[in-house]
Structure formats: C-alpha cells, structure tokens
C-alpha cells in the first residue's frame, strides 16, 4: 500500500516548518511518521502536503533545567529509553519509552509525534499525564504552554491548533520517587489493551477511554490513606472503556484494576 498522492516538503528549521504550514490548507507535520504514515496508507489521513520536520536536530535533546527536565519534541523513543539522565531523574519515562513498539519503531518514533497524534492506546500520552508534564508548542501566533491534563481532548484530538507544533515537553522532577509502568498486550509489539503509569500518587491509564486518563478515584483513595489493593479496586470507577476485537469493556475494567494494583505495589518498592 502506498499513500494517496501528496506534496512532500522538508523544513530545515522550526520557523520554516511553521511558515510552510501557514501556506497550505491540508498540511501535516511528519516527525518519525510511525503513526501518520500507517494512517495515510489506510486513507484514514489524506493530507495534501507533508512537512517533514524529522531532521530538526534543534528539537532533539534531553536536558536538566533545574526544577524540571526538558525533552525536545523530536527526541526518538530510543534516545529517551537510553538516556542516562532520564534513567536517573525520570526512570518512568525512560522505561515506558523502552516498551513502545519494537527497536525499529523506537529508532523512528518521537515523543512529540506520539503526543500530537493523541492516541489513547499509546503509552507516552498517559506517562506525561502521570508526570504532570507541560507541553510547549509553537504556532503562527507564537509560543504557548499547555498542561498535559488540558492537552488530550478526545479521540485523536488534542489542544493543538492548525499549524501548531510541539517543541518541548517539560517534566517537573518528581517529588515522590516511586514509579511503575505496566501494560498488557497480546504480543510484545502490540498496543496496550490496558496500561498504567504511576509516579508517586499520580496514576494514569492507557486505553481506558477516548483519551489517556488520570485514575482520579484511585488517586483520591491513595490520598486518603487507602492501601494499594483497596485503591486499585477503584481503577475503572466512572470510566467507559471501549469494547473491541482485543478486549470487551468488562475485561478492560478488570485489567485496569489488576494492573493498577501491580503498579502501585511495584511503585512502593521504589520509594
């Protein structure tokens, strides 16, 4: 399968990428392409123009900025997964990135691409949610910051406006060190049927709704002193996960309770 005909343009700077995007109607930014190109092959995305931002090295970095860590949007999963700095300061992010897809996918896919794609079944959206990250975006009208909690709006829908580009993910250094990432898949390379990211008392869920979600009922139970097993019983409270070919809604709810329990237990061993 090859995508429908489109025009390919390559940007050599963020400014040029924004300028190219402002000139066309149906434009899409191409980062690693591992979410976008499969959609284009299936005709689920039919952009007229692709603006390749994959070579903007200025957006590929991992930095300690004092109170927070800064990850450039075009940093690949592989570079996130193998970063010594992240392994020390933000092991949840490094570990979760090492569990995305397979090595070939991790060499291409980028953290910013994953977030902009906004798939609730992807791992990193829930991880940045659990980490209370802030997304820095640039667009035709300048730069702005969006809290991860305000970023994911609906099924494949984010707070990004037309022509806006994520440039950086800012993650505060966690106050509580305990973390865990759990996901349940049929095969290693599959999307999570359900996944859980825990950092301290923050708990976020993969594939339990139309967006990545904070498990607020679990967080409230933890905050009021519940034991991990008791808090985990609330993992699916108020949520309406979908039924599909890989799991029924009821099975997803069951998995969420089991995986949140495992994640909380594991996170306590890392406190």
């Amino acid at each position, binding site marked *: 399968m090859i995508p429908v005909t489109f025009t*390919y343009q390559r940007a050599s700077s963020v400014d040029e990428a924004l300028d190219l995007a402002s000139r066309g109607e149906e434009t899409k930014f191409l980062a690693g392409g591992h979410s976008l190109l499969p959609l284009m092959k299936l005709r689920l995305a039919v952009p007229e123009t692709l603006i*390749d931002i994959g070579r903007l090295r200025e957006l590929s970095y991992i930095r300690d900025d004092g109170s927070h860590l800064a990850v450039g949007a075009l940093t690949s999963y592989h570079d996130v997964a193998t970063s010594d700095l992240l392994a020390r300061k933000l092991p949840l992010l490094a570990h979760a990135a090492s569990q995305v897809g397979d090595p070939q996918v991790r060499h291409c896919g980028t953290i910013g691409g994953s977030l902009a794609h906004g798939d609730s079944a992807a791992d990193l959206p829930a991880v940045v949610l659990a980490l209370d990250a802030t997304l820095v975006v640039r667009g035709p009208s300048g730069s702005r910051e969006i809290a991860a909690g305000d970023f994911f709006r609906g099924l494949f829908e984010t707070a990004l406006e037309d022509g806006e580009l994520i440039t950086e993910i800012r993650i505060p250094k966690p106050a509580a060190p305990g973390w865990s990432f759990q996901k349940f898949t049929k095969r290693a390379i599959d999307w999570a049927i359900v996944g859980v990211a825990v950092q301290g008392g923050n708990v976020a869920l993969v594939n339990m709704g139309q967006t990545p979600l904070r498990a607020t009922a679990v967080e409230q139970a933890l905050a009021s002193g519940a034991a991990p097993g008791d808090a985990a019983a609330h993992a699916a409270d108020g949520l309406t996960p979908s039924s599909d070919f890989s799991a029924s809604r009821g099975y997803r709810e069951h998995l969420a309770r089991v995986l949140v329990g495992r994640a909380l237990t594991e996170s306590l061993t890392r406190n």
Partner: protein
Amino acid sequence: MKVTVTVNGSQVEAEVPDRTLLVHFLREQAGLTATNVGCDTSSCGACTVLLDGQSVKSCTLLAAQADGRAVQTMEGLANGDGPDAMHPVQRAFRAEHGLQCGFCTPGMVMAAVSLLAENSSPTEDEVRSALEGNLCRCTGYHNIVRAVLAAASETQSAKAGAAAAERQA
C-alpha cells in the same frame, strides 16, 4: 522529487513520486530485492534495513526521509561471494540453521546487525527483545536466537584474537 540515497556505499539517485516508500525505492530504483515487503504495516520487520546505522522498517518510511542519508541492506553485508566473505551474522544464520523459508531472513539479519552494533554481547533475553519487531512465520525463532548469540560470540572472539595479535606484535 529527486531522491539521493547512499545505499551500501554507492549513491543511488532517482526521480520518484513524493509518496514513494523507502522499501520500493530500494527494490525498484536501487534494484536490491533482498529487502522484502511483508505485512506492509510495520509489524513483521521483513523490510528492516539500517538507516544511518539504526534498524528501521523501510515500509513505513518515505524514500524522501532517507534522502541524503545512508542505507544498508542485506546485500551490503558480505565482502564478496561465498561463505568466507559473509558477514558474521550471515555466517551464523547459515551455521545455526537460522532460516527456513528465508522470507524474514534479511530483516532478521539486519535487526541482529543493529542490535550487535549497540550491544556486542547480548544475553538471550536481550536478543529476543531486540527481535520483537521481526516475525518468522515458519516460527524458527530458537535457531534465529542461537544464530545471533553465535554471531556475537564469534565477533567477540575475533576481537579478542585481534587484540592478542596486536599485543604480540
């Protein structure tokens, strides 16, 4: 658009539609057909090649994304004809019977080469994890893993031998 890719050390230049996938560029423009199109959905890994030294699935990259960069395919591994000229990973697949129908083999070999470039002495678990993105529908995984481990130890002992020879000289 005009795309120029250094494939196995030689420049391949062609005017192709913007939507051309790298795997088709390699097979049709470069004329190198070891790289297979398997699932065409970035699941099976049969199309794995190295892009600037890292394994990628060439069915999920545009040729344009490889423009100006270096690609290595299975054809670029050996130094010539015959078993002696083979790359250690190729030699190990042959010796350990790491292939049955052979369709997944070029992708498996390239994924293994990428692994060994990053981790020259992987454990069995690390080899299995590194091959997660490559499917063998003959299910010949055990021998494939054995082959990658054998290639790693051959490369390690060749290095040790070279170092010893250097010390003597």
